[in-house]
């Protein structure tokens, strides 16, 4: 899950990472008051979980409380890449001497944490990496051995920092690493990492991704996740053990297993159709899941046909069939439904379906043709 800038900075502060003084506000009046409390000037920054807010006009400098209030009026409610701005962060402006980039990330191929540093901060780091790769220093960090001095020496010397800056960077990196591991982040990105006139390193921005698998030991994030997602189809699906992502097409898909669900969408497209969603009912055989899946899909008015693609392994095809029959009793669906059952107890499943007016298919390719035809 993503953390907004403000929450990320609160975490950083907990680990001793210096961040600018700042407060979150949800209306211009609050912004006015905060600016007076902080002392002028300030920066007013849109809190949205997406990059590129600067270019979109979501970050504004303000010399005084009146300007800050005006900036907040412009930013709050703004749409940035489809997300509405509901909060702003008001921060005391800082005396920027240099801007750097610092990132920590789970590196899949290396099976390590990788730290990335560049003196070219405040810009899109991919572009720096593409044009001047020598300006992006990457070093692997062991989770147990940690942010050892030699690692920061590499970052500093290989990018030409002076000795004093190197010391400041070392302290910052250690604290950031502690936050990364302590909060089970999968990504922590500080861009720009700012060196003040005083020499101190300060996190001027923060991007955090937290490992969803570790939420059981970080319960504080669970409420954040809930607040951000509650009420969405994705969230409702998750509560029932389903995995759902809405798309633009007109063929609803219900599949067991993420890989097969993705492959099903691909094959729908290949057959000339357009998938309306990704929906993985998972590995278990609980008919209630099928009922919930039909409920969620049933709400999407764009859908013209529904495809069930079930390969029974641990999932039993007869359970899915039972769930579907039960669902059709509860949720009135007038759309054509194509169902393909294969694997464990497929025969029993087909017998149950045979008593309904659903369209059955033997193979996956046959199912695709039928559902695209039904939707057309």
């Amino acid at each position, binding site marked *: 899950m*993503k953390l907004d800038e403000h929450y990320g900075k609160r975490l950083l502060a907990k680990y001793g990472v210096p961040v600018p003084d700042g407060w979150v506000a949800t209306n211009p009046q609050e912004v006015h008051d905060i600016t007076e409390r902080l002392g002028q000037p300030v920066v007013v920054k849109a809190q949205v*979980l*997406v*990059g590129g807010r600067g270019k979109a006009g979501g970050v504004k400098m303000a010399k005084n409380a009146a300007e800050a209030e005006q900036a907040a009026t412009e930013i709050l409610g703004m749409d940035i890449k489809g997300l509405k701005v509901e909060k702003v962060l008001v921060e005391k402006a800082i005396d920027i001497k240099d801007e750097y980039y610092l*990132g920590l*990330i*789970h*590196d*899949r*191929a290396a*099976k*390590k*944490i*990788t730290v*990335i540093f560049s003196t070219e901060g405040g810009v899109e*780091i*991919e572009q720096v*990496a593409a044009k001047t790769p020598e300006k992006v220093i990457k070093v692997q960090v*062991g*989770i*147990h051995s940690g942010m050892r001095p030699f690692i920061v020496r590499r970052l500093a010397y290989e990018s030409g920092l002076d000795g004093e800056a190197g010391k400041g960077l070392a302290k910052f990196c250690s604290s950031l690493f502690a936050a990364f591991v302590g909060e*089970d982040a*999968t*990504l922590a*990105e500080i861009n720009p990492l700012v060196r003040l006139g005083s020499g101190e390193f300060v996190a001027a921005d923060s991007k955090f*991704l937290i*490992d969803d*698998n*570790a939420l*059981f*030991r970080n319960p504080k994030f669970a409420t954040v996740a809930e607040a951000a997602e509650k009420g969405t189809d994705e969230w409702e699906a998750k509560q029932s053990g389903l995995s759902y*992502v809405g*798309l633009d097409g007109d063929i609803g898909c219900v*599949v*067991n*297993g*993420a*890989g*097969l669900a*993705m*492959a099903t*969408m*691909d*094959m*729908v497209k*290949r057959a000339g159709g357009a*998938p309306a969603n*990704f929906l993985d009912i998972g*590995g278990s055989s609980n008919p209630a899941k099928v009922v919930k899946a039909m409920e969620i899909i049933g709400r999407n008015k764009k859908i013209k046909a529904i495809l069930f693609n079930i*390969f*029974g*392994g*641990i*999932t039993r095809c007869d359970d899915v069939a039972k769930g579907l029959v039960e669902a059709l009793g509860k949720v009135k669906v007038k759309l054509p439904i194509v169902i393909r059952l*294969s*694997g*464990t107890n497929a025969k029993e499943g087909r017998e149950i379906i045979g008593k309904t007016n659903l369209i059955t298919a033997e*193979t*996956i*390719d046959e199912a695709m043709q039928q559902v695209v035809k039904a939707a057309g």
Partner: protein
Amino acid sequence: MAIFTTKDTKVLVQGITGRDGAFHTKGMMEYGTKVVAGVTPGKGGQEVAGVPVFDTVAQAASKTGADTSVIFVPAAFCMDAMMESCNAGIKLIVCITEGVPANDMLRVISYVKRNELRIIGPNCPGMISTPGVKLGILPGNIGKPGKVGVISRSGTLTYEVVDALTREGMGQSSCIGVGGDTFIGTNFIDCLEAFQADEETDSVVLIGEIGGSDEEMAAEYVKREMKKPVVAFVSGRTAPKGVRMGHAGAIISGSSGTAESKIEALEAAGIPVAESPSQIPGMLKEKLQ
């Protein structure tokens, strides 16, 4: 028998007294697997499906000679379970459990010294070597003995492919689901190396999906080292790109990760990429001629 296992593989099940552990212990035994012990702390002395339960892996291994562990314990305890098996001298761990924190896997990988122990998973369906050794939850009834090796990041998609192969008369040597998490113990290249060396395998099907760069690296490996025919399938061509947050991922993985990148890399390495699982047996037959 094919990769990572032998007909003498002796299995203990960590979390055997749980619902899933008990259920799949029976499934593994029905397939012919020698499940010799179970481990659940505090339940030593019990039995599950006739298999004796021990409090610790060390006790189980020393009393029964188990050399392989299949793990069904809850995600929060998987790190400890894997370290325990490593410490007790287990040679192969298959961790079925879903939801293991990435940092825990980093800790496990750091704990395990290279060459001492192989881990498959976590968050994987396990593996089958036909006939007789099933480690995990892959359904045992859709495959048949033969010479095709199957490697996959996905569960049900694997069944789909195995089913397609079996229908066309192409049996399998080993089928292995490596798991989809960020940090996994055994990746595509490890499996390809093993299949390359395995005398009972004559060809390989590789089932990839979007994310990471395992497919790209596997393509490179195949081009450089692999003498046996390989056919691939990649799911996720139509998957939404998602709202990406942060840029570090792009820096360490470059342009890899998309279905397009993977398919391009595989085809450039001479690996045909099927558009439907049903095409795979035909493509493989063509390559084998």
